[in-house]
């Protein structure tokens, strides 16, 4: 190419999608450019231009206004203005509906390209036509499918099915056999784990650890039945699940063997070792050392390693979803160990109960050392004096978590607060009140309780409450309206202008709050979809997936929203890993300078997806 135009070339080359063009095509594109100078407060297209063109801001600033004069976006150096070539390029419907005005905010030097030329280039280079033909949701989808491909390459477990790992057939032993016979069979066959069968039906599992702990250590005769030491109600995993979920299930429950089922029948066994050999993953190690920790001081030491794990996961290319699940599983392990310690100290609970996680931990979207949100649900048979035990438990666990870096909840949403340490019927009443007589303020404070998960204890307690709750929320349009009103308070920004984040009212802000400007609005939308459709899932992606195709959200919008969520999550995980590596605290404030030009484009696309769904939510009540 002509070195003479190298300046223009390097400028154009830095702008997606033209960065993907090979040199000769780039040279051709540049040779077709026109240069215009437009004074401040004029409108595009410039005088004398009546053909449709793509405009590229070389210097200056433009504002795109909707037909009702609302600022839609602001463009600076290197930004593309596609307002006038939409009719020529196949245009996405959702962006076509408004006819917009483009005006110059400063004296501007703009390059422009005839849309016919652009279309010709697009015909030869699909990356160009894809960029202009796709709407924001589609561009984001392309980006996320690329990201997911990368994740497959760098981390196999997430996308490998359990079926690739499990051993089959599984070694079974009849329930009538003795412990000694089981030990002999294990030795002969080289297994550390047998499935206990009664009439060919699996009723439990026995591992060499059970023989050690429940027989030898307890002084049980080796002639005793294996039924005495086997684990009943064993956890299983379906053969179609992915290996990562298997690993997480074992991490959370602190087990090393997981029977694999096909249509409910045990068909094989997967072990931690099988999975670990395939992944340099240490979430399981983590949970194992947490379980072995003897004292609070030891737990504290382990917790110092959590940020390192988050960095490691981010480096492995794990998606935000998987990082969140890993960290949440580890927090769960910490909590469980603390509860065990408390039970050692204060004795067994007087009545059945469950320790609940609220907010991000319940949604399995936690990142290292976020604040703790928890509660206790107690069986209705509790007597008033029983609360003393639960208070001790709450203080012990919450203080312990705080020592391990999970700071106290600033809103006092913790089991130490007597309000959030209540029997089932009281919890039911709380939820009934929130749903029956909703007030925006009360909902703002309590919305965290609509994301609730059992960490430890009797899961049935919460399930009964949740079932009733979902039955009610599905019917209560007033409640959903109030919840929506709160949720729509957080709006994504319009995009970027130079190195600033552009807010709705046109004002600039130096950094982007990824959490409040992007992630939280999606979490809120997902919660509304779940509650209005009676979806019991708590995890944001699962909620959106399960609500997809209902009257709350269409299938395609659901997919778009998940793409946006995953993209924002990915940026957040990357940003936090960077902060942690520099020895700073992991925050959610992203400077636009940290973003590549392409990431900015994708972020804008993600904001548009959120805004569209917020708008349609707003229109629906």
């Amino acid at each position, binding site marked *: 190419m*002509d070195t*003479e*135009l*190298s*300046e*223009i070339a390097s400028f154009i080359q830095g702008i997606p999608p033209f960065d993907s063009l090979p040199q000769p095509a780039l040279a051709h594109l*540049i*040779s*077709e*450019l*026109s*240069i*215009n*100078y*437009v*004074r401040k407060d004029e409108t595009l297209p*410039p*005088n*004398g*231009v009546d053909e449709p063109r793509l405009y590229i801001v*070389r*210097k*200056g600033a433009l504002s795109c206004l909707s037909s009702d004069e609302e600022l839609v976006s602001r463009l600076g150096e290197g930004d593309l203005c596609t307002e006038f070539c939409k009719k020529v390029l196949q245009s996405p419907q959702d962006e076509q509906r408004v006819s917009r005005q483009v005006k110059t905010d*400063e*004296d501007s*030097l703009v390059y422009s390209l005839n849309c016919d030329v652009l279309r010709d280039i697009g015909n030869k280079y699909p990356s160009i036509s894809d960029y202009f033909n796709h709407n924001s949701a589609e561009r984001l989808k392309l980006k996320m499918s690329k990201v997911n491909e990368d994740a497959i390459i760098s981390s196999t477990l997430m996308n490998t099915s359990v079926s690739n790992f499990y051993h089959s057939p599984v070694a079974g032993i009849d329930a009538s056999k003795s412990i000694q016979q089981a030990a002999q069979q294990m030795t002969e066959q080289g297994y550390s784990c047998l499935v206990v069968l009664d009439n060919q039906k699996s009723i439990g599992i026995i591992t060499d650890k059970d023989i050690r702990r429940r027989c030898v250590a307890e002084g049980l005769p080796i002639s005793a039945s294996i039924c005495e030491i086997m684990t009943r109600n064993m956890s299983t995993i379906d053969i179609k699940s992915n290996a990562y979920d298997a690993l997480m299930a074992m991490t959370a429950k602190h087990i090393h063997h997981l029977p694999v089922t096909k249509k409910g029948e045990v068909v094989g066994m997967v072990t931690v070792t099988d999975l670990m050999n395939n992944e340099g993953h240490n979430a399981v190690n983590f949970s194992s050392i947490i379980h072995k920790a003897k004292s609070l001081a030891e737990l504290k030491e382990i917790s110092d390693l959590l940020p390192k794990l988050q960095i490691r996961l981010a480096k492995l290319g794990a998606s935000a979803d998987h990082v969140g699940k890993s960290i949440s599983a580890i927090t769960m392990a910490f909590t469980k160990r603390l509860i065990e310690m408390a039970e050692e100290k204060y004795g067994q609970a007087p009545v059945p109960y469950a320790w609940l996680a609220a907010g991000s931990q319940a949604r399995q979207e936690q990142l290292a050392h976020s604040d703790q949100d928890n509660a206790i649900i107690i069986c209705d048979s509790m007597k008033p004096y029983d609360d003393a035990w639960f208070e001790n438990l709450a203080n012990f666990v919450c203080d312990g978590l705080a020592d391990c870096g999970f700071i106290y909840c600033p809103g006092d949403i913790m089991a130490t607060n007597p309000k959030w340490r209540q029997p089932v019927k009281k919890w039911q009443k709380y939820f009934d009140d929130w749903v029956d007589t909703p007030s925006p303020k009360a909902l703002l404070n309590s919305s965290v309780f609509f994301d609730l998960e059992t960490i430890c204890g009797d899961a049935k307690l919460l399930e009964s409450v949740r079932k009733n709750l979902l039955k009610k929320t599905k019917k209560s349009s007033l409640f959903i309206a109030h919840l929506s009103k709160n949720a729509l308070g957080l709006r994504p920004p319009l995009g970027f202008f130079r190195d600033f984040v552009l807010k709705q009212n046109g004002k600039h802000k130096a950094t982007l709050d990824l959490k409040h400007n992007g992630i939280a609005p999606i979490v809120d939308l997902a919660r509304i979809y779940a509650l209005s459709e009676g979806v019991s899932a708590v995890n944001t992606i699962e909620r959106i997936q399960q609500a997809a195709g209902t009257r709350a959200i269409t299938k395609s919008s659901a997919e778009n929203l998940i793409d946006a969520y995953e993209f924002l999550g990915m940026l957040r995980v990357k940003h936090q890993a960077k902060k942690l590596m520099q020895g700073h605290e992991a925050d959610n404030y992203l400077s636009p300078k940290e973003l590549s030009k392409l990431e900015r484009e994708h972020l804008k696309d993600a904001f548009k997806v959120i805004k569209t769904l917020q708008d349609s939510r707003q229109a629906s009540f």
Partner: protein
Amino acid sequence: MPISSLFNSLVGYEAKRKRLLKKAPDGPLKDFLSVPFPSLDTPIQQLPILALDFETTGLDAKADKLLSVGFVAMEDEQIKLNSCYHQIIKTKAQLEESNVIIHQITDTQKEQGQPLRLVIEKLLKALAGKVMLVHFARIERQFLTQACLELYGIAPEFPIIDTLVIAKRQLDKRDVAYDPSELRLSSLRDKYALPSHHGHNALNDAIATAELLLAQINHKPKTDKIQLRDLIL
């Protein structure tokens, strides 16, 4: 204005063009002269312009040599990059080191250049019927005149817009002292917040000059009413 059009028909560039056309030998120069120039009352919006820049070995058109030529056309107040032209000229003169530093044209590149005759032919063809736009007209005018004398025996006459002179007229009107360095292409571009450019390449400078003219006319009062007569050198 009848008086000025009368004046124009007697001594203006159109009159000169017609006179020279009769004398010119057949060939590129005659072809150039046979196309009428735009009249003085042509509105700027309709004015065909060719922004031009020469790189030379020095300031003396008789002793120094033309090294390269770059130009780009402007129509409807738009710079059309598809009209870009840049050519290094093959001359016999040895390049001095100081010049190589400025123009970054080396002897080897020069050897691969085209003969002066072909480049001037190309230029005359592009310039026909247009107004020449330059920054500091003396170099381009003298070197083009000299080249035509050498090649065709006569020198043409053509209308010129000089962005330096436009800027100078404005500064003179303010009647305050100014530093001559304010009139440099790069200083003037800075003044209008145009992006910084890589100078001393003939084509880049031609584009930079064209952009500067766009900024200058857009900052004049009553931009719509500007005619060639308001800008001509």
